[in-house]
């Protein structure tokens, strides 16, 4: 593998050594099905339940039974959105769904499907700082509303939404509230009780666990249609549990919780990164005015294409991204920055830098050192009008 400075933790985090240690028994003797009655199955079951407790603790859930394991954050989002939508439609005929305009693609891609099934989708915009227009969102809630979903922190900009306020109104009006916390979990304190959410999604690999495991918090009493039928996870999610992924998620959740007190470290790096980048001409910070994750900076570099710029950084030995990582490696203009009202050239020149558990000062220094050189070079060959 190449030796690059890695500053793209919002895409994924390196696997923690503690995770590797914790999963290795399950690659050998701990193979049993956790639903089997014999003792080796029970042992695996205990490991699963320990993981559930650890995740519950990270999220502030009162009862570990409120945690359902999924294959990913995306699946958790699907399970919440489809599950709540279909259940509400069947139980109460409610067919309106309210979301923010800056949700992750795993949410956005569901909307046209639900819309084609007769659901009414209401999308709430954000201001130039990326903060949701909660006034108009709250106004949009009516007796037809089944679900409101607003992410806790945006994956591209790190902007943190005032979900506590929205959740409170939803509860008052008897509407389910879901939040995608894939980017915020483990980066800022998170408490489902204080926030008042009914449903909340997280992903393991963003915390330094393995890809292929996530979780959905489902408040006691909230009913969903299961996305995958089966007897596992108390009939809420079928399929034999991904033991290795779940054990890894539990360990990473525990470590992330303990590290929340380290936010000064991340804030200091963020400051260094932003001071460094903003000292170049015609670079602006996106979403910098509102509350943000301590690990994320999103810049617009005028006069360049962010995707080509990210390649230039890669070839200079630094991994950063032009926005969210997607399947083909192709860049498409960010819907998040568009929703914030940025002009086209600033959307095109987007660059995201995000730190995490294994980041070192050397990596940050390396990025800051190569930044002006790479940007100047790219600008000298770029055809994007400045």
């Amino acid at each position, binding site marked *: 593998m190449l030796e690059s400075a890695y500053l793209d933790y919002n895409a994924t985090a390196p696997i923690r050594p503690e995770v590797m240690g914790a999963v290795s028994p399950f690659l050998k003797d701990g193979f049993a099905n956790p639903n089997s009655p014999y003792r080796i199955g029970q042992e695996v079951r205990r490991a699963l339940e320990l993981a559930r407790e650890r995740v519950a603790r990270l999220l502030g859930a009162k009862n570990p039974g409120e945690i359902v394991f999924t294959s990913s954050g995306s699946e958790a989002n699907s399970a919440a959105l489809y599950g709540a939508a279909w259940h509400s439609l069947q139980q109460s005929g409610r067919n309106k769904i309210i979301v923010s305009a800056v949700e992750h693609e795993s949410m956005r891609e569901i909307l046209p499907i639900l819309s084609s099934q007769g659901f009414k989708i209401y999308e709430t915009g954000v201001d130039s700082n990326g903060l949701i227009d909660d006034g108009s969102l709250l106004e949009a809630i009516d007796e037809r509303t089944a679900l409101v979903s607003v992410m806790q922190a945006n994956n591209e900009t790190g902007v943190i939404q005032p979900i506590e306020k929205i959740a409170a109104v939803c509860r008052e009006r008897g509407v389910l509230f879901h939040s995608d916390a894939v980017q915020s979990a483990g980066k800022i304190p998170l408490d489902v009780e204080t926030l008042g959410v009914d449903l909340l999604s997280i992903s393991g690999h963003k915390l330094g666990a393995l890809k292929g495991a996530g979780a959905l918090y489902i408040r006691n009493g909230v009913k969903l249609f299961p996305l995958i039928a089966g007897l596992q996870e108390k009939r809420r999610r079928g399929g034999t549990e991904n033991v290795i992924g779940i054990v890894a998620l539990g360990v990473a959740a525990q470590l992330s919780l303990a590290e929340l007190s380290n936010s000064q470290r991340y804030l200091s790096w963020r400051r260094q990164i932003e001071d460094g980048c903003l000292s170049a001409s015609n670079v602006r910070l996106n979403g910098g005015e509102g509350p943000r994750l301590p690990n994320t900076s999103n810049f617009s570099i005028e006069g360049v294409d962010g*995707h*080509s710029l990210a*390649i*230039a950084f890669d*070839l*200079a030995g630094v991994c950063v991204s032009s926005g969210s990582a997607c399947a*083909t*490696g*192709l*860049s*498409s203009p960010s819907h998040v920055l568009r929703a914030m009202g940025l002009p086209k050239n600033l959307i095109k020149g987007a660059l995201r830098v995000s730190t995490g558990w294994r980041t070192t000062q050397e990596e940050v220094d390396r990025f800051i050192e190569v930044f002006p050189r*790479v940007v100047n*070079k*790219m600008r*000298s*060959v*770029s*055809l994007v009008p400045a």
Partner: protein
Amino acid sequence: MNQKRVIVAMSGGVDSSVAAALLVEQGFEVIGVTLQLLPGASTGFGCCGSPADIADAVAVASRLNISHYVITMDELFEDKVIRPFVESYLRGDTPNPCALCNRFVKFGHLLGLSEAWDAGFLATGHYARVKEGKLYRAQDENKDQTYFLYNLGPRELFRLVFPVGDLSKPEVRSYARRLGLETADKPESQEICFIPNRDYRGFVKSHPLSSGLDFALKSGPIKDVSGRELGRHQGTVDYTIGQRKGLVSGSHAPKYVVRLDPKNQTVIVGEKEETMSSVCEISDMTWTSGNPIAQGQALVRIRHRHPPAPAHFSLNKEGRLRVRFDSPQRAITPGQSAVFYRGEEVLGGGMIKEVIE
């Protein structure tokens, strides 16, 4: 710049796959790049980066164990290639879009990016040869693509590599088969990559530039050179100079398109001899050496696969190059390129602006 690092433009075809493979063999740090030239999931083919072609390029890159990136350049492609293509047809000309794509996209923006990416060289799967900043015809005369590459200058040529330029197509295919490359037996793309089903007319017609300027799409008379009406056509865009098919039936001798006059919505046809001409004027001349030549002799090619014909040329007052062929040439077509050769070497070229006599 890193002289061991080379960017290879990988279209997902066999030629650029083999180009990449040869450079890997030569010990370069090879980085594959596939350009997506049409927006989103548009169905192009050939070199414009359709989803299937991108997948092929990715498969080959992974087989060769090289880094690979996909870059979108759809706006640049629209601006520098598609728009001039449509404008050319609307003028009644027959464009050479590949030459524009090479100049502005592949050896323009991508070459610039490769510089920013610290790569000493840019390679493609073109059949042509470069040596010490000079451009030469390919070894395989059948496959020679210099007709689309003439507008490069020394700034580009010193940084370009055409690894398959010394090979024949069968050699390229057998090399690809030997390496087990996914693209070894992939069929050739002969058409213009952004036009589905050869439907030029439909493409030009549906392009926003055509609105209000669509004389070329309107029906009008087919006339002979003396002005006598012989029939009707459905738009000059359907015709190209020298073309024989699709003309008035019933006349005894076959007729050929001699000239297109889209402003008057007229197609002018004549006998075969009437498509022959000796003198034309060339605009937008570029020279591979970077040094313009005001007058001289050269072999001049007026369309892809046309055997270059001896001609004399000189610069006129309007800054166009006037070319007089030693013997008349068939169907000299405005919008096409005129490419100048000295033996195997490409001297430069430009766009045929007008046929004089």
